């Protein structure tokens, strides 16, 4: 069963907060993973690993570089989930 955008954002924000120590409320759709949230490549891959687990999707490595913002990741996850 697919999650709503809001559910994906909340779940992703929880993962990002856990990895970075940032406040979950600061992890918004328009935030850039690198510029705003200061997430390095290892942390990004950790977040991806947890997100795949949580949402039951596959996020290929070559796709990760296209996920510039939290919103990009939410859209990708939404699209990757079975309808």
């Amino acid at each position, binding site marked *: 069963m697919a999650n709503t955008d809001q559910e994906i954002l909340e779940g992703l924000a929880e993962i990002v907060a*856990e*990895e970075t*120590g940032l406040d979950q409320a600061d992890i918004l759709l328009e935030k850039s993973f690198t510029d705003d949230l200061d997430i390095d490549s*290892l*942390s990004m891959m*950790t977040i991806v*690993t947890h997100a*795949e*687990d949580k949402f039951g999707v596959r996020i290929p490595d070559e796709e990760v570089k296209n996920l510039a913002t939290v919103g990009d990741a939410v859209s990708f996850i939404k699209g990757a989930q079975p309808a």
Partner: protein
Amino acid sequence: MTSAREVVVTGLGATTPLGGDVASTWEAALAGTSGARTLENDWAEKYGLPVTFAATIKVDPAEVLSRPETKRMDPSAQYAVVAAREAWADAGSPEVDGERLGAVVSSGIGGIQTILDGWDTLRERGARRMLPMTVPMLMPNSPSAYVSLEFGARAGTHAQVSACASGAEAVGYAVDMIRSGRADIVVAGGTEAAIHPMPLGAFAASRTLSLRNDDPQRASRPYDVDRDGFVLGEGAAVLVLESAEHAAARGARVYAKVTGVGLSSDAYHITSPDPEGTGQVSAMRFAIQDAGVTPADIVHVNAHATSTKVGDLTETASIRKLFGADADHVQLSATKSMTGHLLGGAGAIESLFAVKAINERLAPPTINVDNPDPELQVPLVRDEPVKLPAGDIAAINNSFGFGGHNVALVIQNA
């Protein structure tokens, strides 16, 4: 008398089975407290582990580190960072050029919990579920690397590996870095986090662990006739070592000097110490010569003494062999009776104890020695701390490791 190459101790930090910092650890040690506890888990039933206790860390690092820190560091690195932060603050958070600051924090085993967790994930869920931080968490230089990141240490980051001598060898290497002019300050110590059923099972298989499951606090009993092996401990200790000149220039408080480093190897057997103690005697002799003292100056020895049948007596025979009649005025302390055996952390916490003993002129007790082994050849501090004499005094910390590694450090009053 202060020379540029003299090395002093200006900061101390620890997190151990006795306490989450130096003050609580030292207080518990002087009071003769055991850090051993029954393990609250199902390892014995699940795996048939013959041992059901260990000297677990007193304060969970999760209480003092941030959530991301505990997620990206193996527990061995977490303990090291907790101890290093305390030591650094204790040294007055010195202003120092990063190129003149080193980090040497050893672990005997490395990130064993990360290795085993990673293996479980791989087998149960496949390679794609493995976490990207697995490699930097499992590598045995990880604690040292995190300590270097913490303070911007760029004079070199090292991790000597010599099993249970690792922590002492780290301190010795740090002394060499300062003496050779490569650094003004080195954050040095040892750490271990191996309380997991696999290492416990492995040590049990080597028949070196105490199996006194019904009385954990009485299990670590170096030199007692009924000793039956060591108690696995965990934790870290870190010392801030500094050139005496640098410390004097910034008006730092000095606990003691580290004046002698002695290293040797047995080349006898992979686990058993050479029964003649040849390598142990050499290490102590080298350290004493390096310090420019004589056995008559040594008033206290923090023994390696793990509470095994063979190891404990070999060491005191070695001390007697080197010291002769001077061994009669040595106050011998076996603090593993209280902390358990911190493996790669042992040489560091015991160096720290030797520094405190010299600084406070108080040798910590050895507990659980109900019936001293008749072959014990050196006066043992039992149950209560013993005052060390006034005037210039020196102590030795001995640390020996599987593989035949022997390290002796001489510590003197400032």
